[in-house]
């Protein structure tokens, strides 16, 4: 690589993309009641952030951003594993994973 | 030797009482309180020789809190009041038997410890800790060993606890702000602060809430009567004899010097409020049916006058306030004890149900009479010295304050004598009233002796307190 790819694409394009992606994730979290979909939305948000990390990593010509993405993926994997396990047990107890049914936090 | 010894001794006393077992507890507590009294006398002698018996040491680095104990005339006077009253209060409880007396007496000593700490502390946070620490024992004393219906008692005591605690929290906020300005909680650093007008107002107000509730100044007094009535007499004595004085003492030590301009600006309102308390307390006391409640309202009236003295910001006002604090501390303990003595024999505190005691117990009557007269500030008792000085200071500010505040000597005489007449005089009571026994007599005689001696020769207390007050006034008028 001799030329920085961002000279062509422009970092702001990535920013717009990731912001939109992130907001779609937020939208999903708020919009859907199915806990699995909510999970997926969260994954979308994470990915949006990861993408931004990598974009900036390239922008700064620095590997640390990608290292961080790596860690973030590790955390995401763990989170998904635990989260899904919780969902499974919730499903077993309630027979549904509709988050509106999860009202045990009620004060 | 410095004042820490005293604190440590009281703490050890509390622990020793706790481990001594129920049978010995009262005696161990009495012993320790007497030793503490002796120690504080010794400290006083050292202090009078000019030895510095204060104590300063760093405690917490961040935030910067020091274990600073300051012994000047003012705090020595209050410490002596505490250590002198504690043995009397403990001795006064010898006629009662308590469940779990080891806990009870340990709490009493612990409370003495906390109160002495409050009087001595020269570091804002340390002072605050002691201040709140004193609240805990009295809460348990009143709650567990109190009298009357449990639910009502709980209601009264919890109200008292939350009310005073809530007030103190404002003070804590005030201290936090002061710390952010001064970078230290030390009294001398806080004295040096140059606060703006607005800041002074808020600090003053925050402190005022805490103290007005503790003292209490109307309309913050609503906790008082019920708690006095419901608490065991020992608790009532501790509350009225010493703990109220914590509030008044703090006004002199903390509130006025830190926010002097606000104090000056709001002086008429503050004095007015305090004097309103005098009148209000006296009038409410007129028709009380319960002996302890009557004394509670009389106490409200008296501390109102003391607070008025404090807020005059004159040497006389502050001096008189301290005298009156001491005098009132003794006399109110004596009066509550008299109520307790009556209760021990007749099992009632309803004034209507009493009467005709004089013909059966002349000794008790005489002592009660002297206490009543002291509380209405008859010349020759120390209360007169205090009341005279306070009223004089009020007259310096505005003669009408003195006139209105002075009605306390009329109304006070009215309700006290009325009470005395209904409780003690009249046809011989059908129930048998045994005259006071030795331990009861000791308490009475000690209190009366103190009041009469210093009533005629108040110079020692004057010499002790006056320099400290002048120092504080110098800070106020800086």
């Amino acid at each position, binding site marked *: 690589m*001799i030329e*920085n*790819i961002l*000279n*062509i*694409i422009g*970092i*702001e*394009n990535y*920013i*717009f*993309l990731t*912001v*939109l*992606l*992130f*907001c*779609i994730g937020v*939208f*999903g979290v*708020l*919009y*859907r*009641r*199915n806990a*699995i*979909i909510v*999970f*997926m939305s969260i*994954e*979308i948000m994470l*990915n949006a952030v*990861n*993408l931004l990390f*990598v974009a900036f*990593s390239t922008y700064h*010509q620095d*590997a*640390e951003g*990608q*290292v961080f993405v*790596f860690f973030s993926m*590790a*955390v*995401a*994997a*763990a*989170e*998904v*594993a*635990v989260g*899904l*396990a919780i*969902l*499974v*047990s919730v*499903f077993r107890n309630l027979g549904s*994973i*509709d988050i*509106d049914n999860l009202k045990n936090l009620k004060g | 030797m410095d004042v820490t010894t005293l604190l440590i001794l009281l703490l050890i006393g509390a622990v020793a009482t706790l481990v001594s077992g129920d049978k010995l507890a009262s005696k161990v507590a009495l012993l320790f309180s007497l030793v503490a009294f002796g120690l504080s006398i010794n400290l006083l002698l050292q202090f009078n020789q000019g030895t510095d018996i204060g104590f300063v040491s760093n405690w917490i680095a961040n935030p910067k809190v020091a274990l600073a104990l300051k012994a000047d005339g003012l705090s020595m006077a209050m410490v002596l009041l505490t250590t002198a009253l504690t043995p009397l209060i403990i001795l006064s409880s010898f006629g009662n038997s308590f469940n779990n007396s080891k806990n009870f007496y340990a709490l009493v000593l612990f409370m003495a410890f906390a109160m002495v700490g409050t009087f001595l502390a020269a570091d804002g946070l340390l002072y605050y800790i002691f201040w709140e620490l004193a609240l805990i024992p009295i809460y348990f004393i009143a709650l567990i060993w109190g009298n009357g219906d449990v639910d009502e008692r709980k209601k009264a005591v919890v109200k008292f606890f939350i009310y005073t605690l809530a007030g103190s929290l404002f003070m804590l906020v005030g201290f936090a702000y002061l710390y952010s300005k001064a970078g230290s909680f030390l009294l001398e650093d806080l004295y040096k602060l140059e606060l703006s007008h607005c800041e002074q107002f808020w600090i003053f107000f925050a402190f005022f809430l805490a103290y007005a509730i503790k003292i209490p100044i109307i309309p913050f007094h609503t906790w008082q009567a019920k708690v006095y009535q419901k608490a065991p007499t020992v608790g009532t004595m501790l509350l009225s004899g010493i703990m109220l004085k914590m509030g008044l003492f703090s006004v002199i030590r903390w509130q006025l010097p830190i926010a002097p301009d606000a104090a000056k600006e709001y002086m008429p309102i503050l004095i007015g409020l305090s004097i309103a308390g005098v009148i209000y307390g006296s009038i409410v006391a007129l028709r009380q049916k319960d002996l302890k409640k009557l004394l509670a309202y009389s106490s409200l009236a008296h501390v109102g006058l003391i607070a008025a003295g404090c807020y005059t910001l004159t040497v006389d006002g502050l001096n008189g306030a301290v005298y009156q604090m001491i005098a009132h501390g003794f006399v109110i303990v004596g009066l509550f004890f008299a109520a307790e003595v009556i209760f021990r024999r007749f099992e009632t505190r309803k004034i209507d149900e009493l009467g005709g005691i004089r013909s059966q117990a002349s000794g008790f009557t005489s002592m009660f009479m002297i206490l009543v007269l002291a509380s209405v500030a008859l010349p020759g008792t120390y209360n007169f010295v205090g009341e005279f000085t306070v009223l004089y200071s009020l007259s310096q500010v505005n003669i009408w304050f003195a006139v209105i505040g002075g009605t306390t000597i009329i109304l006070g005489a009215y309700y006290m004598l009325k009470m005395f007449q209904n409780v003690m005089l009249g046809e011989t009571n059908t129930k048998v009233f045994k005259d006071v026994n030795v331990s009861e007599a000791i308490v009475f005689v000690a209190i009366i002796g103190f009041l009469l001696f210093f009533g005629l020769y108040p110079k020692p207390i004057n010499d002790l307190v006056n320099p400290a007050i002048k120092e504080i006034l110098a800070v106020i008028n800086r």
Partner: protein
Amino acid sequence: MSPVLITFYFLAAFTLATAFLTIYSKNPIHSAIYLVLCMVSIMGHYLLLNAQFVAIVQLIVYAGAIMVLMLFTIMLMNLNKEDEVHKPRITRLGAIVVFILMSIVLITIFINSKTIMGEYDSSGEDFQSIKVLGKVLLNEYMVPFEFASILLLVAMIGTVLLTKKEKDQK
């Protein structure tokens, strides 16, 4: 317009579309499949940025492991039906409003902050080949790296525990 830019626009459109469809489809299975497509397109972005290592990890972890896990879960719960009741209209409206708001807010920030960005750096040094990344990871980030493994281990144990305990009680 260079081919790179065209590729980017295509990928971006694809990413956004699939992401939206993920959320929008009623059937969770469809959602999952769209999500996989979304992940793959993001991998495409990584490749475009020449971040091979991240691209591969993305493919393996997300598109592979996580999505398979999700699909399994969906099937386990027998959720492949379109039986989800929609949220009340007010909530949906709120979600849209928040979506717009959030977008505006975030875009504003980044536009504002663009002014302080410097020149594009293009020293031409190799900074993101797997070799370099490996060195960085195992030198500077050794300890966090190891902790990541512990994290995964814990997650694994947790998962097992969470799902197993239920069985015992039954």
